[in-house]
């Protein structure tokens, strides 16, 4: 095999960069041989318990991480879960994370004014934010909404759309649009004031425009372009917008990413999100450990957390599951189905005082006993 086949791409490319021009072919050959030698010396030994090393590498420094949620760098900021709680959140494989965020890149570079208006368009708008007032007309038993034309214009939505949205969501009322006034009249008679009051409160929080789930927007200048940072995320709907650069726009929720872009992307997202925390805490952990953890979480094609419901629950060994959590439950279910523990992994052999099938416990020696 040639050095190019043996060496990882990165090392090979680095070598190309480093080797000065006008190097004779024989020297290049010598360098390549030396590199291959160096690389093969650095390879992992078969039987190496890489999983435990990864767990140690994350677990040991995690005692040094802070618990506090910190602020994002920049002048105006949003709260982001960082430190240990964030790592726990990612490794749990939670379906909803505590502070979802997005970074939206645009296809074309724009100016500051444009980006502000785009940001406003994206933000989830409730009716409350687009009206002058909302009142209950006691005499006619109806609700009156007076829209704020200025703010409607700002986000580029017309009264028609709002009217449509309202009538769609409250079907038992008849909604009428008149200029900037929308009146809601109950279709049935005998509606007491209390229900009207409830209706008014409900209408206030009604979603009318923007992208659902985007709670806050913040246009930020990054290098020579503008980026919209959002609190709250909705990857699918944001990707549908035509001005968004879908190749770079990301969110910080691996679970959402796996739904939209698949596990491969989610795996990468887990690696990046964990590594972000590690770097922010000023710790030095090799990325290979994080990658291994992310890979074990994603091997089955969906994200499984490092919990008793996730990765551990799918271990083949009964005793390994028993040794983790809820032992009685596992013993019971194993006895019903007549499970057979082949003792292929570590912990059950520790329990039985036998060599573990890892590292030096791996090679087996056959011997005739006379």
């Amino acid at each position, binding site marked *: 095999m040639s050095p190019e086949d043996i060496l990882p791409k990165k090392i090979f490319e680095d070598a190309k960069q480093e080797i000065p021009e006008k190097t004779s072919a024989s*020297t290049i050959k010598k360098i390549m041989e030396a590199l291959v030698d160096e690389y093969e010396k650095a390879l992992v030994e078969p039987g190496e*318990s890489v999983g435990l090393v990864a767990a140690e590498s994350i677990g040991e420094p995690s005692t040094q991480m802070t618990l506090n949620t910190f602020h994002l760098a920049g002048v105006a900021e949003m709260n982001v879960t960082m430190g240990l709680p964030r790592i726990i959140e990612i490794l749990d494989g939670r379906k909803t994370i505590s502070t979802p965020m997005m970074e939206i890149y645009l296809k074309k570079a724009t100016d500051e004014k444009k980006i502000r208006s785009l940001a406003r368009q994206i933000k989830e708008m409730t009716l409350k934010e687009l009206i002058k007032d909302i009142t209950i007309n006691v005499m006619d038993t109806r609700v009156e909404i007076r829209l704020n034309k200025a703010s409607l214009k700002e986000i580029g939505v017309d009264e028609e759309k709002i009217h449509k949205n309202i009538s769609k969501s409250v079907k038992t009322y008849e909604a009428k649009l008149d200029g900037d006034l929308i009146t809601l009249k109950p279709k049935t008679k005998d509606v007491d004031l209390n229900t009207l009051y409830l209706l008014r409160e409900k209408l206030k929080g009604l979603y009318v425009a923007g992208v659902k789930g985007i709670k806050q927007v913040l246009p930020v200048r990054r290098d020579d372009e503008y980026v919209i940072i959002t609190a709250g995320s909705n990857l699918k709907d944001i990707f549908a917008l035509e001005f968004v650069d879908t190749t770079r726009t990301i969110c910080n929720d691996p679970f959402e990413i796996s739904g939209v872009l698949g596990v491969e992307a989610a795996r990468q997202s887990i690696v990046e999100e964990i590594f972000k925390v590690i770097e922010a805490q000023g710790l030095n952990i090799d990325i290979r450990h994080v990658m291994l953890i992310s890979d074990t979480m994603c091997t089955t094609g969906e994200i499984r957390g490092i919990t008793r419901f996730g990765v551990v629950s799918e271990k*083949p060994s009964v005793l390994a599951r028993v040794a983790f959590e809820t*032992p*009685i439950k596992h013993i019971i279910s194993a006895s019903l189905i007549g499970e057979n523990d*082949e003792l292929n992994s570590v*912990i059950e052999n520790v329990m039985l005082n036998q060599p573990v099938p890892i590292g030096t416990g791996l090679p087996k020696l056959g011997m005739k006993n006379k």
Partner: protein
Amino acid sequence: MNEQIPVHKIVNSISFGLISPKLVKKLSNVKIVTPELYDREGYPVDGGLMDIRLGVIDPGLKCKTCGSKIKECLGHFGYIELARPVVHVNFVKVILDILRGTCRGCGKLLSESEDLAIDFDEDVDFQEARKETKGKISDLRKITKCPHCKAKQYKVALDKPTNFVENEKRISPIEVRMRLEKISDEDVSAFGINAAVARPEWMILTLLLIPPVTIRPSITLQSGERSEDDLTHKLGDIVRINQRLFENINAGAPEIIIEDLWDLLQYHITTFFDNALPQIPPARHRSGQPLKTLSERIKSKEGRIRHNLAGKRTNFSARTVISPDSMLDLNEVGIPKEVAMKLTIPERVTEWNKDYLKEFVKKGPKAYPGSNYVIRPDGRKKKITSETQEQILEELQPGYLVERHLMDGDISIFNRQPSLHRMSMMAHKIKVLPGMTFRLSPAVCAPYNADFDGDEMNLHIPQTEEARAEAEILMMVQTQVISPRYGLSIIGCNMDAISGNYILTRYEEYSRKDAVQLLTEVGHRDFSRIPKKDVISGKEVFSMLLPNDFDFEGKTRTGSPVIIKKGILKEGYMDKSNLGEGQGLMLRNLHKKYGSDKNIEILGKIFRLGIKVLLRHGLTAPIGNTDLPKDVRGEVDLTLSKAQEESYQLISDYHKGVLDAFPGRSVEETLELKILELLNKSRNDVGNLVMKHADKHQHLPIMVDSGAKGSSISMTQMVACVGQQALRGKRIERGYKNRTLSSFKPGDLGPQARGFVENSFKSGLKPHEFFYMAMTGRDSLMDTALRTPKSGYLYRRLANALQDLKVEYDQTVRDASNNVVQFLYGGDGIDVSKSENGYIDVKKVVERETGGKK
């Protein structure tokens, strides 16, 4: 002489299943019929719960079943015949599912489709089977008419914990059992139950298996009274109620009394299995303390599994306080003679070492180095005492084992808890020393995370040749120097060793005589490379320790270059970024080029050199080091007061309403941010001033500059100003309404009123400033206290999930069921502990091969 053949069994696999009534009888040796335990003489009653056919726990008695004595007999099972069947609590949910899913009349599955059944003779993925059945059977309960016999079906409910109710009538366990008996094996499999090992009717107990007495031994109190185990108590209750139930049934007692007794029996058997069920009151001792029954014995951290099976106690170990000894090598551990004389290493007598080992026996257990025991080839262990000594010496011959005292050079495993990574257990060579503590080189404190404020550590002595070989090859300190976490040296110099080498390589000069003296003290013997001069610089002294073909280029902490050529420190000086643990590449390169043994030798010498230099130079932190020149003091005060003035300006702007808000922020938040930034900046400015004017030869700045201890911030806090105290990234706001302390006016937003500490530690804090510091101090204390258990649990989960992953011979990473997790470890197959900070230094290889020409 009959040679004892060691029996070495290997467990291949463990199968799980239910125990059928038939099997109960087969396993048992005794039928328990009486709740009495002992007769009047204190001898176990036949047919009682302590029957000696169940095993023995009293010394002197012999087991009636196997004839062995205490400790040899593992115990035997017995059984109770229950007067009426009783439900096993742990299976209640399964029984409920089965009752709901099968016909109450004909016992067939309430479904006509055939594909529900699982064929357990074929290879079944248990996980999959479990998942699938769960969804399938939940639909069955809605069917109201049996598709086979057309019988009407009723809703079956569970009256927790153990009663089944159908049509608001209770189904007795007898009836439940009858229904379960009717179900065919095939139909049972639809519920994910393998009838070959678990017939559903077995979940209703008719016979109760009694555990051997050896797992529930009684304790004899000092008063001679016997105190029985919790399980025995519980079993006594069961037997008692069972007998009463029998009697009542036979006497033809009214149904109500029988029902009551039956319920009571059910309660006792339920709590026998699990005494922590939410629905029923736990069975208690007379003292009111709940009994610890079967489930509680297995469960949780203190249960059998995690306490006794996943972790075990060991012999041949020692624990004591640790203290430092920099004259020890990194891979040595100093142990007290007292410990060395208790811990032993077995050595087999051969023709060739007979005389050598006889010497140990001659010395006996009281003299060092002696021996404590001799093991005969038949496995009999003999203690060496003054009486037995003569005889043992005479009979000693090849094949015997002598357990001799520890000696210098023996291998031991040294450990400090919490054992968070593999460097928490390393092999050290024994060095027997006077004193009562374990001694270790301060350089290996970092991997153990140890200090000497009273820390204790454990020492283990491997007892077999295989274990010693493995410890020596895989666990010795020198093999663990490169951390698998980031691929840099985790062992390095710290504290005095850093400041010592810093002073040496930066300022010191020695006469030739002193230089030789210094190097000798460090343990260096090769003086051929000492320059032929009268005055030898510190750099040259330091260079003596480096191999003469070592080349290195790096940077100091301030960024100035460090150049080592051919083993001589040409430029720069040593500080933390080159000597410290987990820092630069200098130590990594030494390790790579000269191997692990040479590396720790050099490292040990460098460490000692630093300490010896300090011994001559002296290092202390006098109060004078915190003085500032008068003009600098003025400048500092000016900076601070100016910052405070500016923040008052901001506050008045805010009150006037002329403060512009940041985008996405309110005016209040903007003000806070601006003030915080301003005050932090002022402290930084002051810090820069302090560091700029600090005398670099003074000891405090030396410690800071070398990275040995302290930072520019800690200097500033001592000298000039402690600075703003922050809680949750904000200025301090909590306390009274609208103010932090009652000495301020409500609504005061000024620096002093919101946690700014203007004074330095030297000048002393004002009362309110002291209070602010106490607040932040408490906050960080809380943070640590809350964080430790959280991260501990995270670690446990990670370790449990990942412990089976290993690299196969084809370089793939696989889990226990051989699923590929990664096709090439880390994407490139590189072992982090063999890399340089995670990379392979391509540049260096190219330079080496091209001869350094660019």
